[in-house]
């Protein structure tokens, strides 16, 4: 019991003790979360995953209407469940395509967060740390780069598609660990070629002129941010010369594949993610927004789920066909679930206490539903996975050293998933 309490930080310890410990303490939590010694032994067989595609459902995805349905009950609203190709795993009717891919997927129905507001929740889910006014923490892409290096010399190590999420940046790490942000996947990597009519010689001459003009300014102001731009120029120039730039161009994909993923920006983002992974980009995040369904929950979720269903099922199918699924961990997460109670606007409100995420590929044993909630989806009944545990599981899959301390410039110690423990039983 003591070890469990020690692993939690101040905040989660408090809520842990007062609200949730009574229900399951000492029952099923301990065996699933490996203590450090066990974890060290378990590392011999891993890692399997080299890369990660991280799908973020921004706004707080309703668990009850997606991956933890409670058909027929008061809390379900009109949503029915459908069987899947994984024995005994039922998901919401909004996912007819994904239902046929569940043999590749491990659902985690017992995720729990301490953060109930978007900004804080998104930050926590991405960084494993609670948002503070005094420091920003790195996201998983930056951690991966920092702890395990890059594999493509010219392309960035991590790419975030479709808007930056709170907590997905480089945080206190140097800006060279910052992901590249691509707003619109269909635009590819904008401005990565010289302007028309500008020769390489002329381009270099201009660059040279710029750096001469700027010399006295840069000598005078010895600022981190001024220096950081120099790094960015180096990266940008290297990128412009890269053979791998074509990875960003979705026009190289045959039409049927583009249709399969969906031509909306999330579908295109997932397809771009696959292309980047093929070119050894190690971390790609794609965001699907619109899950903040305080009003008109059922119509909105059905609509979002349709987009997700098509893109995610195609992505899994495609990775599998290309033999990439074993080395690519696919993660789907969100900042919190939504209330079992349906409010007067036919909406559901924020609910961090219990919600669902999923993982696939990268050594994950598919076809399982890990953890569970009670009949109303309000409380985790078994195998609770706190947010840092969830991220520790990702880090574990990627073979990152969970214990390695990295210091911020202010000399504060941090680790990749704070004090989270990986859920090793998810892996085959």
């Amino acid at each position, binding site marked *: 019991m003591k070890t469990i309490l020690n692993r939690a930080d101040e905040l989660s310890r408090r809520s842990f003790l007062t609200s949730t410990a009574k229900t399951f303490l000492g029952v099923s939590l301990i065996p699933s979360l490996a203590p450090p010694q066990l974890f060290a032994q378990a590392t011999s067989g891993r890692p399997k995953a080299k890369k990660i595609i991280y799908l973020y459902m921004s706004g707080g995805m309703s668990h009850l209407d997606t991956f933890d349905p409670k058909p027929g009950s008061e809390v379900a609203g009109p949503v029915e469940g459908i069987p899947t190709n994984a024995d005994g795993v039922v998901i919401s009717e909004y996912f007819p395509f994904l239902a046929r891919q569940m043999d590749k997927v491990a659902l985690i129905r017992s995720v729990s967060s301490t953060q109930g507001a978007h900004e804080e929740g998104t930050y926590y889910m991405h960084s494993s740390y609670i948002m503070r006014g005094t420091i920003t923490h790195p996201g998983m892409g930056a951690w991966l780069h920092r702890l395990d290096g890059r594999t493509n010399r010219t392309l960035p190590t991590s790419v975030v598609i479709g808007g930056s999420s709170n907590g997905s940046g480089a945080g206190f790490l140097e800006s060279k660990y910052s992901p590249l942000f691509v707003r619109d996947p269909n635009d590819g990597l904008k401005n990565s070629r010289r302007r028309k009519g500008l020769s390489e010689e002329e381009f270099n001459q201009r660059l040279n002129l710029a750096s001469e003009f700027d010399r*006295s300014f840069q000598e005078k102001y010895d600022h981190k*941010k001024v220096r950081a731009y120099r790094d*960015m120029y180096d990266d940008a*120039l290297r990128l412009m010369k890269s053979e791998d730039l074509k990875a960003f161009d979705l026009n190289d994909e045959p039409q*049927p594949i583009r249709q399969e993923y969906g031509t909306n920006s999330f579908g295109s983002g997932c397809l771009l993610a696959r292309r980047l992974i093929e070119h050894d980009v190690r971390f790609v995040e794609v965001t699907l927004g619109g899950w903040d369904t305080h009003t008109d929950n059922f119509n909105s979720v059905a609509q979002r789920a349709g987009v997700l269903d098509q893109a995610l099922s195609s992505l899994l199918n495609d990775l599998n066909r290309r033999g990439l699924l074993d080395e690519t961990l696919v993660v789907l997460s969100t900042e919190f679930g939504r209330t079992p109670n349906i409010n007067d606007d036919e909406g559901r409100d924020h609910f961090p206490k219990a919600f669902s995420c999923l993982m696939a590929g990268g050594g994950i044993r598919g076809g399982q539903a890990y953890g569970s909630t009670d009949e109303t989806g309000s409380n985790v009944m078994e195998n609770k996975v706190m947010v840092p545990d969830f991220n520790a599981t990702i880090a574990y899959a990627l073979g990152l050293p969970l214990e390695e301390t990295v210091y911020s410039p202010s000399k504060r110690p941090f680790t990749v998933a704070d004090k989270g423990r990986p859920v090793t039983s998810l892996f085959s």
Partner: protein
Amino acid sequence: MHRTQQAQRSVAVFTKADTIQTLLKSSDHRALTEDLQPMFSKSSTLCRRWFIWLSCMIPLTPVMANDALVSQNIDQFVEQGYREHKIQPNPPSSDEVFLRRIYLDVVGRIPTHDEATSFYAAEGPNKRSQLIQHLLSSEGHVSHFFNYWADVLRVKSDIRGEAGGAYAAWLKKVIGENRPYNKIVSELLTAQGYVWDNPAVGYFIRDSGMPLDNMSNTTQIFLGTQLVCAQCHNHPFDEWTQLDYYKMAAYTYGVETRIDPDSVVGLDKLEDRKKRRRSYEGMDRHLREAVNDILEPLSYGVHESERHLHLPEDYQYDDAAPGEEVRPDTIFGKRVASTRNMREAYADWMTSPSNDRFTRVIANRLWKKVMGAGLIEPVDDLKDGTEASNPELMAYLESQIVAFNYDMRRFLSVLYQTRTYQREATVVDVDPSDYHFPGPVLRRMTAEQLWDSMLTVAIPDVDKRKGTSQYLDRISEMKERATYLLALEPKEILDQAERIAAVEREFDMFASGLRSNLATARENGNSELAKTLSEQLREGEQKKREALKVVNEAIALQYKGAPMKTDPSMMKEKDSATPSKDEADSPWAGFPKDWVRASELESPAPAGHFLRQFGQSDRETIENASTEPSVDQVLTLLNGKIYDELISDNSLLMKAVEMLENDSDKQDYIFLTLLSRSPTNRERELLRESMKEKSSKDMAESLVWALFNTREFAFVQ
């Protein structure tokens, strides 16, 4: 309280020591540098006239004399801090550095070539002070200050139909009028009705469905007090309990931003609709959606209901029972009588000059806006033990902003007039929480400053160019549309909606079977079949879109027709008032419509826009703007489409350069336009060397490109 008294005592001492006369004479004035001299001999009489005019416009008034004294006092407090912390102040800034910085800080863009030359040519000890006054009362300042507040208040212009846009327009209007800060806040917190009744309702509509978040954002923005953690549990690092949180939230919990449009137009009275509690209970989704679309303008506004706030069912502390009803109460300061209108009581309490935190936050915010770091950092996480880095100065600033009746423009002016502000920026990285202001902080331009500065180079009269969405004009139109809708019979609304729903319904039936077959085909690897099926699906979608277009156009004709019927002249007038790109006699002929200042674009700009690339806030969270570098910013500066406008023949800069005779004049002009200074001798040498084989046009393009790719351009010294 104690600190304020102390501060006032020290002020009295300063007042005796310094007369107004010596104070005014002491303002820094330096001779022009030799480099710049030749240029001024050429400068036109226009510049001199501009400056004489400027001097006449701003006579020295008693208020200004008082304010000059306040600036002086602020410097004294800061300099006391230097002595205590053994800090050497930075040297005074040159005119070039000052000019560029004051334009960027006050009007949010670099000075134009003419603005720069006028200032350099001007003489007299008050030229800086006069320029500050001039800029603060200009249109450019409204634009820039709006960007600042849009980031703080998370203003989104595209929410809830036109509500967000009208709210943004209102904010610009009150900034333009320099409405006192406490009045603005009070109006935001008490606004009622539809957006066309009072656009300030946008403040609550922004957080529709999130009344608790709205409250914690409100305390964070205006009181610098973070309650957000206490939403789910007692605050781990501060004194707030979850009960405190709920008590505060109870003040505004009755505020409803959703208005049931069904009841407004009488749809709920129709017999077959009464029985249903929820729309999915035996209800057709498509019809519901269509009704919602039609009635959308009527469904958002602010009204107060009898809704009461209850503690959560899993409430875990001993000070109250789970599910208990919560009565409003303030977390600090005076208690407010509970018999009054709740929201007015809440606003009065919040904005009262006796609410220390309200005053401290705005004084500290504006200090940070001017100097680059707050006296308290972060500006929005004050706790009981929080100490300013210079407590006497903090207390003095608080007393002054109260004395100014929360006149932000006047307060900013006082700060800009200080010696402290007019020093050089600090050359090393600073830790904002331990900074004693030897000078302002070096900052990268905000995304908006960069965009607006770029436009300044290319576009004439950039501050005057307006965007295409003039919401204040449209508010009356919105009202008329609403009036039209309200006049319809419930049955008529349903009939219109049914026409849309029928199309959607038919498509759904067609598509559902097709989709399932498609899934099977894809899994079985039957790509031929999959292709045929997805083509059929696409054709179906296309047909649906066409059908919807026909129906929607028919309906829209009645809506859009409404204002035309009542006043056909209105539309015409509006057209002529809005300059169009296509009109050859417009000063902006030939420039893209969306090359307008950031404040004239939608808020936030769409993802992928230059502004977003360079860190404009997504308006999701308070002050979410960023000045962090990224690879894609650099790619834009190297290869971006921006150069299409910057170096086109139509560009303001290129036209001016074209008129000049020799290359060295052209180069000087470009330097002064982009960097607000002349090239140094070394730079001239370099230019002679590298440009000798280039045509004039190539030379100009290369030079513009090179200067845009310097840090000197992007950072505010």
